[in-house]
């Protein structure tokens, strides 16, 4: 199946499609010209689908930008020139982008601008589960929230219409299991043909300098526009009523509305349901009419009480007398409203509705320990952690950052004890180094994060002479999110993409002590970290090894499979288990009855990074067929 070809279909069609791919078809139908992003779950598949399209046609320009703020600015700049533009990133990406995004609706992006947010209720792959609807209120940016892939497609088209018509940015908020949901989606045809317009930027369209006295009229204009969009929301087909003449009503939005329909199928006396697809500005007249016709209304929304507070305020202004029930308990604000959590929520508010008890109690689900994520077989980070820890003392303080190497905080490495956000490590590390002459500070950064948000912290440490040793984990890719290129990835002469050398950047910043070691050379890396730690002030060890998951995958696509595998010599093995308890490669298995260690042939890639670890030299690397005969 070639998703690129399918998405470019000229005629209307339908196919099984993930939300993240359906939105790319919507971009093509709407005539989007510029698409930017910084990779982050749950949105990377949008980029994968967009890039698959570019193999055949160029309906839009696409780039992985350095970070979310730059990505948003590139999309904004393109829109100033009249280009319909899209930027997408994960939930916390909006924090990075927000310094610019908060100005967007003061100005008038001429070509249209849609910001796709991959929010993550449940924090499946994020450091928090922030509810980005709050940004809508702060920025005066409208929000549409689809519940399934069909709605993703339709709401993106709607977002474009609102944006172009009003010269306003629009948020399309897709939560994790909307991004990844798959179902059959019906698409339209491709009617929009780009006209080959030139760059149309004109400061008179603006103005575009939001300073001092210009701010007030700009802000007023955005509030007035939002009022106009509220009227659209009152009549939007995405806000709809399921009326059964019940005395009880539910107001709900997004994916939880589908969980609700599952639960309501259990009971005869169902409440009326008002489903909200346009969550900002809210259709408050429509909602108040609904409230007026019911004795009790339950408001169901994932994460924060965003809609609830608005509805309660509007009902108060209208003098409505009904009972509005919302969030009261801490748990009401936490996690995804899948069926089991929603069941718990409704049963705690409306036990009389008669929903069943859960088939499996929530407590039973948390009793089973989750399988901990671990670094892949052959991962250079594993070698690095093993070698770096040899250079550390027990009470040295290690600071984590975001990337695959974050997993170092877990056993057996336990490297990295505090985490905030992308690139925080050298700022936090600097603070930890103050009034501290006894405990050394070791920070970590991945190479993608180095460029994304790592540089200001490094520059601060250099300028202010903070005593920190930074380990840069350079694997040439943004590995955690599925191997996207970054500024330090290999150059591409065809597109003119340059590779920026991390070492040259550090030297340019005046970092005097920069060590470079391949992480598989474990003793050299230990020595490099030892030497770097001996340097007073800011020092760096670049621990380099290509991402082995990417490497083996690319090889496999070229028909090359690993032909070597680790083997354990039973005559030498003394069951010390350093390969498991210290090195922690998932390829080593223990026979729980005999205590003997063996290699899982389904996992081992024959990289050999484990060989140096065994104190009795029992691990060897052999040709695969020889290893199998053991």
């Amino acid at each position, binding site marked *: 199946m070639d998703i690129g070809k399918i998405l470019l279909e000229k005629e209307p069609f339908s196919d099984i499609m993930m939300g993240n791919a359906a939105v790319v078809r919507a971009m093509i139908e709407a005539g989007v010209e510029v698409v930017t992003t910084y990779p982050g779950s749950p949105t990377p598949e949008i980029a994968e689908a967009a890039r698959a399209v570019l193999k055949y046609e160029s309906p839009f320009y696409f780039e992985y930008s350095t970070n979310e703020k730059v990505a948003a600015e590139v999309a904004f700049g393109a829109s100033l020139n009249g280009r319909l533009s899209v930027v997408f990133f994960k939930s916390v990406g909006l924090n990075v982008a927000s310094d610019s995004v908060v100005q967007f609706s003061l100005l008038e992006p001429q070509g249209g601008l849609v910001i796709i947010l991959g929010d993550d209720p449940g924090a499946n792959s994020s450091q928090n589960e922030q509810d980005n609807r709050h940004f809508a209120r702060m920025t005066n940016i409208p929000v549409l929230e689809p519940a399934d892939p069909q709605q993703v497609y339709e709401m993106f088209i709607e977002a474009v219409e609102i944006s172009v018509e009003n010269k306003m940015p629009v948020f399309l908020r897709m939560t994790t299991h909307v991004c990844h949901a798959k179902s059959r989606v019906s698409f339209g045809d491709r009617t929009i043909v780009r006209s080959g317009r030139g760059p149309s930027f004109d400061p008179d369209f603006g103005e575009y300098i939001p300073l001092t006295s210009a701010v007030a009229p700009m802000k007023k204009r955005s509030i007035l526009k939002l009022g106009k969009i509220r009227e659209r929301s009152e009549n939007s087909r995405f806000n709809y009523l399921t009326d059964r003449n019940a005395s009880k009503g539910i107001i709900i939005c997004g994916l939880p509305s589908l969980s609700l329909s599952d639960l309501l199928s259990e009971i005869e006396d169902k409440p009326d349901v008002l489903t909200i697809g346009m969550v900002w500005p809210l259709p408050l007249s429509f909602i108040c009419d609904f409230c007026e016709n019911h004795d009790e209304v339950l408001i169901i929304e994932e994460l924060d009480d965003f809609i609830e507070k608005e509805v309660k305020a509007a009902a108060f202004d209208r003098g409505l007398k009904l009972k509005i029930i919302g969030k009261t308990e801490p748990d009401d604000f936490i996690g995804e409203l899948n069926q089991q959590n929603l069941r718990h929520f409704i049963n705690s508010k409306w036990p009389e509705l008669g929903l069943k008890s859960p088939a499996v109690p929530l407590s039973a*689900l948390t009793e089973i*320990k989750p399988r901990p994520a671990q670094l892949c077989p052959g991962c250079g980070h594993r070698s690095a952690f093993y070698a770096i820890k040899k250079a550390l003392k027990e009470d040295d303080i290690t600071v984590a950052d975001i990337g695959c190497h974050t997993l170092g905080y877990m056993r057996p490495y336990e490297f990295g004890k505090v985490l905030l956000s992308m690139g925080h490590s050298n700022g936090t590390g600097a603070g930890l180094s103050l009034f501290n002459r006894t405990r050394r500070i070791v920070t970590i950064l991945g190479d993608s994060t180095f460029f994304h948000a790592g540089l200001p912290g490094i520059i601060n440490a250099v300028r202010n002479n903070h005593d920190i040793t930074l380990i840069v984990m350079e694997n040439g890719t943004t590995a955690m999110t599925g191997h996207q290129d970054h500024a330090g990835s290999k150059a591409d002469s065809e597109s003119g993409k340059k590779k920026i050398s991390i070492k040259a950047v550090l030297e340019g910043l005046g970092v005097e002590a920069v060590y470079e070691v391949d992480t598989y050379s474990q003793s050299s890396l230990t020595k490099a970290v030892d030497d770097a730690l001996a340097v007073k002030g800011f020092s760096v060890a670049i621990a380099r090894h290509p991402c082995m998951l990417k490497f083996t995958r690319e090889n496999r696509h070229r028909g090359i499979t690993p032909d070597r595998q680790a083997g354990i010599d039973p005559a030498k093995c003394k069951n010390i288990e350093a390969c498991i308890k210290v090195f922690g490669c998932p390829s080593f298995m223990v026979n729980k009855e005999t205590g003997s260690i063996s290699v899982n042939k389904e996992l081992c890639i024959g990289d050999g990074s484990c060989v140096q670890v065994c104190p009795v030299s029992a691990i060897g690397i052999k040709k695969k067929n020889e290893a199998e005969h053991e």
Partner: protein
Amino acid sequence: MNNTELKNLSLNIYMSGVGGQGIGVLSEVLIRAYDDAGYEVKGVDTHGLAQRGGKVESHLRIGGPAGSPLIEPGTADIAVCLERTEAYRALVTYLKPGGVLIYYNTSWQSLNVRIGDEKEVTEALIKTEAENRTSSVYEILTENLPDVRLQNIGLLAGALREDLLPGLASANIENALQVLFSGDVLSSNLEILSG
């Protein structure tokens, strides 16, 4: 199967394994196979840190009344699992009492097991737990697979042989594979399917 039965089929299939085992492909094949058989389908993969050896799940809901693509714990009719520990986890969380568990009988030991914090799940433990729940268990192991990434199709082939996938014929899976793959990958998958 007649049309009435077709219309009334309502089925929740829960799939799980360890990141890297190919749950994504397994679910893509099944969702397309049921779509090919004429059912309304909804599915979703849940893969936070999946690539890094964590648990990976996929949910598939077949039939018109399904709302969310997610399955509620304790309501899966069938659990299809690629690894023994994850099969046990599926049995005690997602599978309904009296449901069917099909698993590929291989073990990817988690760190907790390897360092001795947790006991390894055995075939016997799964059998006993399944009996307590009146669920049935099918262990599948395909001999001489040329590539571990074909275990997912090996498992599907086994499930088809045992007639454990209601409403689905071998042709539906073949059609799904035809859509998803081509060349050598397609032929090796088809070969395993035909067993």
